[in-house]
């Protein structure tokens, strides 16, 4: 036998053997994230995290002997593109479930597609209308604004600070926050004495704060994403406003402290637990997931894992658990997802049911205070 035949046989043998090992085809999971464009601050960590988690699951041998394959597309934050890519994922890539999109607008656009094609969609965006009313094929992992508002109001009620001034940004995030703040105020016995807004690109909020200073507010709640709230904190310090300042979970990152500097001291805000994962007591049921996520992300990307990555982490793990329980078709995965109980994720403890596809309770948020340029949990 000459050497050419030997090597040919060897190659055939290897191929045969390897197909034996990987007999089961991988399970394809689709993902739509806004990796570029205005919502890139959401999409990028989400994509990174999803990739990281899927790689790790595969490294550990996959789920029930089958590998997962992540097919991720970039929507650039564009709803039209998200719809096209969702169709592509379902028709061409034949995925069993879709993770994402990153923003509420895109998710709302993709929902009809998922419903029609009967493929489960686990959205990573926060808008409460995604799962209210409940849609058969749609779940989500990001916390509702309503839960964050509830956290702040609970604290204010406890400390008898019932006259509140609100200052919200005039974009989608601020509008939704303002709606929730006004809707829930009565339930906690809170009176909104001043209701102001500012533009997302505004550079000076002293006028609004001066007005608030002139009112009898006992607390100021500012609802926005960076950089607006940092300007508000700085302006409040400049004006010598002594009223306690509350922010939204929209600024729960170190970036806010960097931007606001000393003015951030004493600011309180509701935050997902990722931020304070190392401060949580050992008894905390989410602690294990949180610590491992933060550590992994640090190792892979040399950056701190944040909430947004956490939404993708939760989505992949929820899927993994559903598949582990024996589901491998879109409809069986959907049914298993709905049966998820006490899943301790990054965003909180998930309990999905036929009536609730958001799955989180108020414990998804902790109230934190900024002290010495770091976070402290408010008891």
């Amino acid at each position, binding site marked *: 036998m000459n050497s050419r035949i030997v090597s040919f046989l060897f190659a055939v043998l290897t191929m045969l053997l390897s197909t034996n090992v990987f007999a089961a085809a991988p399970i394809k999971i689709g993902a739509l994230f806004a990796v570029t464009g205005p919502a*890139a*601050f959401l999409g990028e960590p989400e994509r990174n995290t999803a990739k990281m988690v899927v790689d790790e699951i595969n490294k550990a041998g996959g789920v029930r002997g089958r590998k997962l394959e992540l097919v991720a597309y970039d929507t650039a934050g564009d709803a039209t593109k998200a719809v096209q890519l969702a169709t592509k994922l379902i028709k061409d890539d034949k995925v069993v479930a879709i993770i994402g999109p990153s923003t509420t607008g895109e998710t709302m656009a993709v929902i009809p597609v998922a419903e029609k094609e009967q493929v489960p969609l686990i959205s990573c965006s926060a808008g409460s209308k995604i799962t209210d009313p409940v849609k058969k094929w749609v779940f989500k992992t990001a916390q509702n604004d309503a839960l964050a508002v509830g956290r702040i109001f609970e604290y204010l009620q406890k400390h008898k600070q019932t006259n509140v001034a609100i200052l919200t940004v*005039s974009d989608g995030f601020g509008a939704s926050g303002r709606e929730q703040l006004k809707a829930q105020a009565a339930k906690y016995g809170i009176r909104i004495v001043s209701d*102001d*807004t*500012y*533009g997302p*690109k*505004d*550079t*000076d909020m*002293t*006028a*609004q704060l*001066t*007005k608030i*200073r*002139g009112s009898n507010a006992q607390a100021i709640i500012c609802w926005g994403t*960076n*950089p607006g709230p*940092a*300007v508000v904190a*700085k302006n409040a*310090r*400049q*004006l*010598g406003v002594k009223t306690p300042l509350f922010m939204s979970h929209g600024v729960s990152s170190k*970036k806010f402290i*960097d*931007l*606001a*500097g*000393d*003015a951030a001291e004493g600011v309180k805000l509701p935050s997902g637990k990722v931020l304070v994962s190392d401060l949580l007591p050992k008894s905390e049921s989410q602690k294990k997931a949180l610590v491992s996520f933060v550590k992994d992300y640090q190792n892979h990307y040399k950056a701190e894992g944040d909430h947004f990555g956490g939404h993708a982490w939760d989505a992949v793990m929820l899927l993994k658990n559903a598949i582990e329980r024996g589901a491998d078709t879109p409809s069986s995965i959907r049914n298993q997802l709905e049966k998820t109980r006490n899943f301790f994720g990054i965003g909180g403890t998930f309990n999905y049911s036929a009536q609730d596809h958001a799955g989180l309770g108020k414990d998804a948020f902790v109230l934190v205070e900024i002290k010495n340029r770091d976070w402290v949990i408010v008891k």
Partner: protein
Amino acid sequence: MQFDQILQYVLSGLSTGAIYALIGIGFSIIYNATGIINFAQGEFVMLGGLLTLTCLDLLKLPIWAAIPCAVAVSTLAGLLFERLAIRPLRQPTPINLVIITIGGSILIRGLAMLIWGKDTHAIPSFSGDDPIAIGGATMLPQHLWIFAITVVIIVINKFYFYHTISGKAMRACAYNRRAAGLVGIDVRRMVLFSFMISSAMGAVAGIIVAPLTMTAYDVGVMLGLKGFCAAIIGGMSSGMATVVGGLLLGVLESLGAGLISSGYKDAIAFIILLLILFIRPQGLFGKADSERV
């Protein structure tokens, strides 16, 4: 209390207005030398802030060295912009030039996004953050810097245009380009100068305001538009009229936000802009044929 509030609104308004004024003067200098509105003016404001940040963080320069450095690089950017985008144009009709400046602004913004990312960045104040009380109102040391630097720049500006040969030559171009060319003034060089001066002024505005407002790749858009408003109120003069226009705009915005509704803050600026354009296109203080410089 009411009086304190008004005082605070006016003080806040004046300090934002000073920034609008600086940007507005940049608009009018170029308008007077070339007859075009340079919509990339706001991008130089952004460049000033972000370049200062780079000088401080990356090159570890002290703040007094970082600022001239950032202004110099922004001026260079203005020079390149004129040389590469404005001068080579075959048919320099105003509409072509305006569209080029809009394109240029998108390009500069895009590059800035790639270089500095999409995050907002903070720059330390020049001299501390302890508020200074004036009557019942407060302001920051940084506000004093803004007022002082604005005044200094306006004085230098005045001196340049009225007491130096090249400033006088630029004014000549503003009155009549062809006549200026006939008496031996190099009009193209004057255009280049005008771009350099206004990009430097834009950069200074961006730097002195950055400690208060923070800076990001896209701050130029809104600041640029507000500066444009100021220039329109001032009738595109590069003198006191635009300064008053900027201050007026800042105070009205601040009073409007405080006394009427904060939701209409930007609307106030643009309603004023439209009213001026409809009713007094020569500017609030202009005579029908106003002095342009």
